[in-house]
């Protein structure tokens, strides 16, 4: 497949050939999404930092396996980051949100001039963090990072249908945890149309 030297695939190809400038450009372009994914998955800025570094180093080792015809590099990177996060989570089991992250979020909220209600956002963040990993990862990719189903499927290594069903289940769990459950369905008569 033809690639432009400055698109993701071109930068990766040059990076794997030893071009430091290309790798720097690729890192700066994609590190933020990898960091955020790891942050949402782990709830820890320190883990997100480590995972971001490990993800790009793994890209150097495994990058020749990237096939642009199968999907974007962003999804491929998310797949690597996911493995790194799951490795940490399985090793350390439970992650409580750390103070550093709390402070950063507070700082961002202040910067946004109070446009968002802290309680609400914090509740959503904790609810996402409390989801089982297989539902959390699809919610993070599809709802927080706004990745399409196909990209998420590539990142997770599952069919698109599985992404949809896990996302649906994850959102149901979130509603229950956030108190916006589906009891209304029982309270309100189901229509027959």
């Amino acid at each position: 497949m033809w690639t432009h030297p400055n698109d993701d695939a071109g930068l990766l190809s040059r990076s794997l050939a030893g071009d430091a400038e290309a790798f720097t450009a690729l890192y700066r372009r994609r590190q933020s999404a990898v960091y955020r994914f790891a942050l949402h998955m782990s709830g820890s800025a320190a883990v997100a930092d480590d995972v971001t570094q490990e993800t790009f180093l793994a890209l150097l080792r495994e990058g020749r396996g990237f096939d642009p015809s199968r999907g974007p590099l962003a999804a491929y990177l998310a797949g690597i980051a996911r493995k790194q996060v799951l490795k940490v989570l399985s090793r350390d089991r439970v992650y409580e949100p750390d103070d550093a992250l709390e402070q950063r979020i507070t700082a961002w909220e202040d910067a946004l001039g109070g446009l968002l209600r802290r309680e609400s956002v914090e509740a959503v963040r904790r609810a996402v963090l409390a989801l089982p990993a297989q539902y959390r990862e699809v919610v993070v990719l599809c709802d927080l990072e706004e990745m399409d189903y196909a990209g998420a499927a590539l990142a997770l290594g599952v069919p698109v249908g599985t992404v949809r069903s896990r996302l649906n289940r994850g959102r149901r769990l979130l509603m229950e945890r956030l108190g916006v459950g589906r009891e209304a369905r029982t309270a309100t008569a189901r229509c027959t149309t």
Partner: protein
Amino acid sequence: MSCEQWEETLMDLARGGLVDPRRAEEATAHAAGCESCAALLARERRLGAELRSLGRLVRSMEAPPHAEQAVMDGFHNHHSRRREAAAARWLVVAAMLALLVSAALVLLRPAPKHRAATPPVEDFRGFVAVPYRVAPMERGYVVRVQMSRNALVSLGMPVSAGQPEVVQADLLLAEDGLAQAVRLVR
């Protein structure tokens, strides 16, 4: 569209992901006429809005600056190791090639003919062809004999006055046994 059928479209409808316009229209119409389903759609959309808020809140978050330095250090180490490994591979290949060439030279060297009967090439120096030799000799062998001075003269060998009456000489014999050349043993 029944409520059960409508619920299958709920998530995609709320996320704006229904790609079939006719199905999207049916689902929207159902929600407009069904209070219960409309409530579910409203909750689904509220959840989506909360998630998007969280997503936007952290959208500008980035890995700390030291992470880039660590990654670039890793990049340089990685390629340095690759270069060293490549150099080592070339050394091994070069050594194997040298070994192969040496082995080929040894194996393909022409074997000396009649090694037992024929002395080394330099031992043929000093031979004087006999006068009756008519054709070049292809194969032959050398024998050491004692000869009288007269016999030497008859074979065309120059003889000096100071030489003894009987001398040692090498005769180069052809395959038919005829002498082809003679030399004195010193």
